[in-house]
């Protein structure tokens, strides 16, 4: 019961559900490459990233800087929320093809 209350309390002080419009951006994976490889997004705002894997093989999109990690199967799409980010560059990569699948999220004011 106490844990349940604590969880609700966390949700209340840190709600992810916001009535403000969340800008959406799309990144595609083709031939183990990200398109665009550099994506500019507004700083200090929550962002909805839609990642479409056009390859037939799976990919795991990972970023230490953004603190995100998600497996995206071949021919499918995934949604990842990031931010609000301070202005700067945040690299991400495909863990299954790290040599080619490299990208950067550029947060700017």
């Amino acid at each position, binding site marked *: 019961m106490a844990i349940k209350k604590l969880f609700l309390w966390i949700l209340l002080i840190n709600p992810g559900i916001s009535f403000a419009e969340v800008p959406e951006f799309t990144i595609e994976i083709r031939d183990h490459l990200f398109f665009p490889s550099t994506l500019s997004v507004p700083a200090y705002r929550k962002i909805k990233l839609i990642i479409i894997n056009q390859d*037939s*093989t799976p990919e795991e999109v990972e970023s230490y800087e953004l*603190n995100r*990690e998600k497996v995206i199967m071949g021919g499918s799409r995934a*949604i990842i929320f990031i931010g609000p980010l301070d202005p700067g560059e945040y690299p991400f990569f495909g863990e*299954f093809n790290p040599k080619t699948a490299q990208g950067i999220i550029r947060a700017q004011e």
Partner: protein
Amino acid sequence: MVDAILLILREVLEAALIITMLLVMSRKLSLTFSWAVPALILSVLFSWILAHYTYAITEAWGGTGQEWANTLLYLLVIFSFIAIAWIISPVLFTTTAKTEYLSSPKNRITRHKKLLFINLVSAVSLSLAREASEILIYLEGFLHQPHALKSALIGSFIGLGVGVSLGAITYYLFIFASTRLSLRIMFILLVFLCGGLSTQIARQLMQIGVLNSTTPLWNTSRIINEHSWLGELLYALFGYDSSPNSAQIIFYLIAVIPLLIILTASWRLSRK
């Protein structure tokens, strides 16, 4: 091949640490390793289910299924660790010798042997399942590229071999240590693992927008980068995050506090 070695090693490291830790604990408490067989069988089954149904899981609940499934797995492992910690905690401070304690009718370990068995199986099988499913998904990507498959498989076996070897070395290091010391270190590792898994839950909830990502409270990436081997090792040991935010810290504490209560209660009980 190097990519495969690194990827598999990264996945295997945490699982190897958990299995090693629980094997040492069983050995030190004179328990059999009988839990290891069902744990391994179930981990193969669970990882196959997770890998085979990844499309369906990912698409579930508006595309948030993967994160909710991970959250459930992490939660179950945390509960198992807390149960294991509660059962073994009296041995950490028992004033009598371990064998004397275990032969006493009031000892918690013998009384809750079945519960300990269930939680050992659950902790290992669920921890392994998630890591192994990622390996299966990774290798599945090479099925249509026979030339690359061979290289990926060799790399995977090397990565697995290195991970298992590190686990074996750690096992023997602890086996030669005294029972009380190794059990105390095991308990501390359990605390850190629970905290680390809990921050993973926060990360999953932030990823699907249930929790907001706030500005990191600190950034230690210049001291220990998560890309580095030390960063990877600390991630496996403590769930190291170079730039955690407030939600992750709160989640860390929620998981760690029950274990600290168990520890304090056992210490106070031993002094009576």
